[in-house]
C-alpha cells in the first residue's frame, strides 16, 4: 500500500506481512512512514492505494471486523480526563461488547499488571505521561487481544518508566503463545531485546523484514563479548581454539569473539565456555549489532 500527502510520499508501495505469533519490531528513522503505516493499519487513516488486512480482513472495507481482537497504542493517546482508569476501561470494555463481569475482572488484573491499582479511581487528567502510557497499554490489553499494535510505547518515558514498560511487554510475550505484536520503536536495543523479528523502513519503503537473527547475523557471524577475571591471555588462547570461532580479540577488560554459525552453534559455544574454568563472569551478545545493521541499511537507502 501507499500513502501520499500532497507531493510527499509517506508510504511507498509497502508490502509487509507480519508473521503470526511473532513479536516484530518496526524500525525506521523519523519520517520513515512508521506511524503512518500503523495509523492505516488501525483505521485512523486511509491508504491512498493498496489494501491493508488484519487477520485476513480488509481494514478499510470492514474496520469493525478487522479490529476485533486487536489492541492498539498509537502515538501517545490521550484519555477522557474526566474519567478514572476504571471508568475508562469500563467505557472501552462496553464499546467492544465485554460483559460487566469480564470488564471488572480484567480491570483488576490489568491495573495490577500496570502497577496502577492505587490510581484506579483517580481522574486521568492528573496523571503523568508515564502513567497515561501505562493506561494506554492497559486499555489495549482489555479484551485479551490476539494482535497488539504499539507505536513507540516507551517514547517520552523516564528510564524507570521505560524499564517498567519493557518488563510488562516482555512478560506479556512470555505469558501468551497466541499473540502477535507489532511494535514501532526508535530504541534499537529495546527492539533487539524484545523482538524476534524486525522490519525496517525508510522513505516509506521496506528495507528488510526477517527474523532478528537473520537480519543481524546475515553473514552468519555472531559477535560475543566475554569478561573474565582470570588470565586473559590463556582465555584468548583457549577460546580461539574452540570450534566455529573466527577471531578472538582482547580489548580493555573484555574479550570479543566472532563466531561463525547459528543459534545452535552459539548454544554449544556457551556450553564449552562454561566448562572452561577460566574465570568467566559475564558473557553477552554484542549490543551494537542491530544498530550497525540499521545504520548500514538506512545509509544505503538514502
Amino acid at each position: 500500500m501507499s500513502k501520499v500527502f500532497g507531493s510527499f510520499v509517506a508510504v511507498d508501495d509497502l508490502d509487509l506481512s507480519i508473521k503470526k505469533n511473532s513479536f516484530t519490531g518496526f524500525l525506521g528513522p523519523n519520517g520513515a512512514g512508521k506511524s503512518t503505516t500503523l495509523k492505516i493499519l488501525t483505521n485512523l487513516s486511509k491508504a491512498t492505494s493498496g489494501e491493508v488486512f488484519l487477520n485476513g480482513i480488509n481494514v478499510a472495507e470492514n474496520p469493525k471486523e478487522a479490529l476485533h481482537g486487536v489492541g492498539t497504542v498509537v502515538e501517545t493517546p490521550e484519555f477522557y480526563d474526566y474519567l478514572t482508569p476504571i471508568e475508562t476501561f469500563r467505557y472501552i470494555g462496553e464499546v467492544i461488547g465485554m460483559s460487566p463481569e469480564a470488564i471488572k475482572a480484567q480491570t483488576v488484573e490489568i491495573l495490577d499488571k500496570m502497577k496502577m491499582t492505587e490510581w484506579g479511581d483517580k481522574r486521568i487528567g492528573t496523571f503523568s505521561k508515564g502513567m497515561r502510557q501505562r493506561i494506554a497499554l492497559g486499555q489495549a490489553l482489555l479484551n485479551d487481544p490476539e494482535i497488539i499494535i504499539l507505536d513507540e510505547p516507551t517514547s517520552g518515558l523516564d528510564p524507570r518508566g521505560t524499564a517498567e514498560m519493557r518488563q510488562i511487554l516482555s512478560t506479556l510475550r512470555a505469558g501468551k503463545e497466541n499473540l502477535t505484536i507489532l511494535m514501532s520503536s526508535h530504541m534499537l536495543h529495546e527492539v533487539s531485546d524484545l523482538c524476534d523479528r524486525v522490519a525496517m523502513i525508510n522513505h516509506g519503503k521496506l528495507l528488510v523484514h526477517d527474523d532478528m537473527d537473520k537480519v543481524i547475523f546475515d553473514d552468519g557471524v555472531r559477535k560475543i563479548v566475554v569478561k573474565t577475571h582470570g588470565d586473559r591471555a590463556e582465555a584468548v588462547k583457549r577460546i580461539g581454539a574452540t570450534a566455529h570461532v573466527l577471531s578472538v580479540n582482547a580489548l580493555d577488560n573484555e574479550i570479543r569473539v566472532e563466531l561463525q554459525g547459528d543459534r545452535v552453534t552459539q548454544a554449544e559455544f556457551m556450553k564449552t565456555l562454561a566448562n572452561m574454568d577460566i574465570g568467566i563472569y559475564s558473557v553477552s551478545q554484542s549490543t551494537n549489532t542491530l544498530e550497525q545493521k540499521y545504520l548500514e541499511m538506512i545509509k544505503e537507502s538514502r
Partner: protein
Amino acid sequence: MAAGIMDDLRQAFVVAKNEMFKYVRGRKALILAVLILAVWGLATALPYIYGDGLEGSKDSLSMYLGSAWIVIIIIVAMFSSGTIVSEFEDRTALVLFTRPIRKGSIFLGKFIAAYVFGLVAIMIYIALSIVTVLVATGGLPAYIPVAMMFVVVTVFAATGVAMLISSVFKRSSTAAIITFFMLFLITNLISSTLVMMETDPWYMVEIPAMNIYRSLEYGLEFASSWSESQEIMPGVFMPIFQPAYDVARSVAVALAWGLVGLVSSFLLFARKEV
C-alpha cells in the same frame, strides 16, 4: 445483518452515555446552569423593575419563550459544537477510533448525547418559566404542547448546525465561537435583511425558533405575513414585517436544517483522518 445493526446501535448508546457523562461532569454544565438561571432571573425581574410584573399567562410565557432561542444557541455552542472536534483536538480519537466500532456508531452516539442534553437543558429553562408564570398569574396559556414541538425541532436544527461546524474546525473554542456567531448573528442578519425587504425568510433557522413563542398566539392555525409602519421615535417610522406562521412548513424547515447539518457533518467526520 440484524445482529450487526443491533450491535452498532448498542455501541452508539455506549458512546452517548459517555458523552452525557462528559457534559455533566465538566465545569461547563455548572456555567450553563448559571446562565440559564441568569436568563430566567432577568426575564422574571425586568417586568417587576420596569412595570407591574407578570400580567396575563400568555404574554408572560411568550416573554420567557422569546429568550428560548438564545438559550438554545448558548447550549449548542457550549456542548454540541465540541462533540466532534474535541476527539481530534484532545487526541482521544487515538483510543476510540482504533476500536472495533463504526464511525457511524460514534457519530450517532455523539448526536444522541448532544441532542438529548440540549433538549433537557432547554426544557429545564422552560419548566422554570412555566412554573413562574403559573405562580405569578395563576394560569397557563393553551398551545404549550405546540410550543414544545417547536422547541424539539429547533434544538434538532441547532444541534445539526453545531455538529457540522464541529466537523469543520480543528479547535473546540473556534467551533464554539463560530457556532454562536453563525446562529446568533449571521443567520439573524440574513433574516433581518430579508424582513426589511418585506420578504418572508421562511427557510431560515430563526423562523421555527421564533415560532416557539408565536405558537402561544396561533396554536396550529395558519397566520399570513403582515407589515405595518411603526413610529419608533417622534416622526421616525420603521416598517415592521411579521413572517407568516405556518406550523408544517416551519417544522419541515427545522428538520431540514438539522438533517442537512448532520448529514454534512457525518460525511466530513467519516473522511477525517487522525
